[in-house]
């Protein structure tokens, strides 16, 4: 089944209570932050806390991600050392601007993996792109490493660099978002959207989820457990979508057995892209738990 990355819950790495509870809200991934949410004088303690949590607590099937500090900050190398030992699923690099940033982190990770006796490539990578340069280099970043499972946009820094601010409809992010999704798709990795910070604006949040889903993103970072359910709801295929997808797959099976190439379902012509989309809907439905595996076809 395809790995779901609809939601990635931010958890400040220096908050023991939140670190302990990170997985109970059932986001697809949790991201322990050692970077922006941790003040300079707490970098060590946050690193230690996240290390202890990852090596002691059982986060079950929830994907664990750690956002490290950049190498330039002076904390990044220590973060990588400790985190490779703690063995999260993914290390997330902030403020990625070019492929070289990834190469550097990758070589540091590889070194630690060797030290620990892990097979090379155990720790996956994710790159956050937060600047115009990073956005323009999105494709080369996305294709820079086999470890990369996804690229994510960090909007706050980006819009500041653009000399603008975030608006309700997100027009200022349209280019960056589209560029990122295209780069991710070209590289065959996940595209992840930025956070929505106004917790009180449920309507605006829903609008944004619909927008990024339509743009092609796989999911979104969330800053509060309350934001998980709406994202999952909107990213989960509806009953109508599933029914239609099943009909498409059924139709194409029948067509194949009749040696006919083109079919119509509910009056719409079904060709290859539609079949692929139907397959993706059913895959997503299975991963989301709304469709039992093996029930893709009505007749099974």
């Amino acid at each position, binding site marked *: 089944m395809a790995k779901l990355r609809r939601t990635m819950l931010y958890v400040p790495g220096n908050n023991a209570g939140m670190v*302990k*509870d990170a997985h*109970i*809200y059932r986001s697809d991934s949790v991201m322990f932050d050692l970077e922006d949410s941790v003040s300079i004088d707490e970098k060590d303690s946050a690193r230690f806390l996240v290390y202890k949590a990852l090596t002691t*607590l059982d986060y079950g099937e929830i994907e664990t991600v750690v956002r490290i500090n950049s190498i330039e900050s002076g904390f990044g190398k220590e973060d990588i050392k400790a985190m490779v030992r703690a063995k999260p699923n993914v290390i997330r690099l902030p403020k990625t601007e070019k492929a070289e940033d990834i190469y550097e982190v990758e070589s540091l990770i590889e070194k630690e993996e060797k030290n620990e006796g892990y097979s090379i490539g155990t720790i996956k990578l994710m790159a956050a792109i937060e600047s115009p340069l990073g956005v323009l280099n999105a494709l080369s970043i996305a294709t820079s490493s086999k470890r990369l499972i996804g690229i994510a946009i960090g909007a706050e820094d980006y819009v500041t660099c653009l000399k603008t601010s975030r608006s309700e409809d997100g027009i200022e992010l349209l280019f960056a978002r589209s560029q990122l999704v295209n780069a991710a798709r070209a590289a065959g990795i996940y595209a992840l959207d930025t956070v929505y910070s106004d917790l009180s604006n449920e309507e605006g949040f829903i609008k944004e989820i619909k927008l990024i889903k339509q743009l092609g993103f796989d999911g979104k970072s969330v800053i*509060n*457990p*309350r934001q998980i359910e709406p994202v999952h709801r909107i990213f989960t295929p509806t009953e109508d979508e599933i029914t239609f997808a099943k009909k498409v797959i059924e139709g194409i099976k029948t067509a194949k057995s009749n040696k006919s190439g083109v079919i119509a379902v509910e009056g719409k012509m079904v060709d290859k892209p539609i079949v692929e989309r139907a397959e993706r809907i059913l895959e997503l439905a299975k991963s989301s738990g709304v469709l039992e595996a093996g029930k893709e076809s009505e007749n099974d």
Partner: protein
Amino acid sequence: MTENKLGRIIPEKISHIGDLLPFDGAYAHTPLVKKEKGNRRLPKLNKLVDSIEKVIVETNLKNGMTISFHHHFRNGDKVLPMVMNVIAEMGIRDLTIAASSLTEAHQCLVDHIKTGVVKRLITSGIRGELAEEISNGLTDIPVVIHSHGGRARCIETGQIKIDVAFLGVPSSDVYGNANGYTGKSACGSLGYAMVDAAFAEKVVLITDNIVEYPNIPFSIHQDQVDFIVIVDSIGDPEGITTGATRITNNPKDLLLAQLVSEVVVNSGYFENGFSIQTGSGGASVATIRFLRKYMEDRNIKASWALGGISGPMVKLHEDGFIGKLLDVQSFDSEAIRSIGENRYHLEIDASYYANPLNKGCAVNKLNIVILSALEIDTNFNVNVITGSDGIIRGASGGHSDTAIGSGLSIIVAPLIRGRTATVTDSVKTIITPGSTIDVLVTERGIAVNPRREEIKEKLKQSGLPVYSIEELKLKAEKIVGKSEPIIFKDRIVGLVEYRDGTIIDVIKQVSN
């Protein structure tokens, strides 16, 4: 044969009927009626007394007697402190206070106990400094903790004999018809006070709002009341309610609420006509919101709800999802408004609510109750009275009453509080026996009492994360470890009376 006051000849005795008392004049045996007849401007018959001090004299309150108060004004109560101060000034001593509960507003009792004005406490709960002092051995005689239903039973059977009840009422007429719905100190239901009014030897109403006779509807009625005192203020509205209950934003409470609602929906009890009680805590109130969605989706309606009524419950009632509300205590401003306005939001007294020995109490008809816990042990025994430090900090309330009465009793609690596990080998104080608890819901999983195997199967089939309670305990201990046991002294500072009058546990003095 004898001649009565009007000159009629009356036999002194008749066989099969007995002795006969000759009429002795219309006023001879009914001293409380007015003797003057005339126009409307004559002074109206009333029970008003000028001051608390005078009323205490009138009631003939003596050393060693038992007096009672209610806690409908919660943290905003001014009645108990006001009355107790006057009693202390008058030099009356060794009183027993039988309060429906004691709150943050009642900390003055610490001094009254130290100075000998108060000798004993009987209550559902104690909080704050008073609770701490009691846990440290303030009273010579142990405090008796009872449930709301247990208290009603005690009063009705005479186990607690109240000499004088001092009852704050948000509105009353001069003859003693009182309710809690109106006035600046409105508190809604007067359910706990109604029992005292019915059974106390002397009943004193204290109000800041005298209204025209007859005050309708009345919860406490004129035939029960001896005296009325008017004071400036009986309660601080901010302490009486915190306003409208809002649905919590706390993610963990919301998660718990979601899980509880899924347990309810998949338990087999969620069908048209069900009845429910929830507490006033964050997760409980949020459960109501989640349940509403399931009720809408599946077109299911509840016939009635019980309790402790809060705004979200009122909303469901007014929107047609709950037929009737039975209200012993109104938690917030919306509940207070509703009980005054809605025909089927009915005030009930504590005996009707939960007295185990009357001919039928409401908890017995309850399908589902959602309750909280400070601690629960692997036998499902629940503690809601003593904190992780062993100090008293809560109330028995209707916990044990509703747990046994309901068809499905659900405990909702975070598995870990701070650095302490909620599930333990043995709770510090048992308020509710595990044999009356069915399901425990925590953020890390659900446990079903083994005696309810059928519910366990249903919840498992619906995909809910069901574990044994021992597994939940281990999950918690893996994160926070096992707590060091609290060291208590041998001295007993509290007796926990189960609703039937038996002693289910004792609370011991904490060791410094």
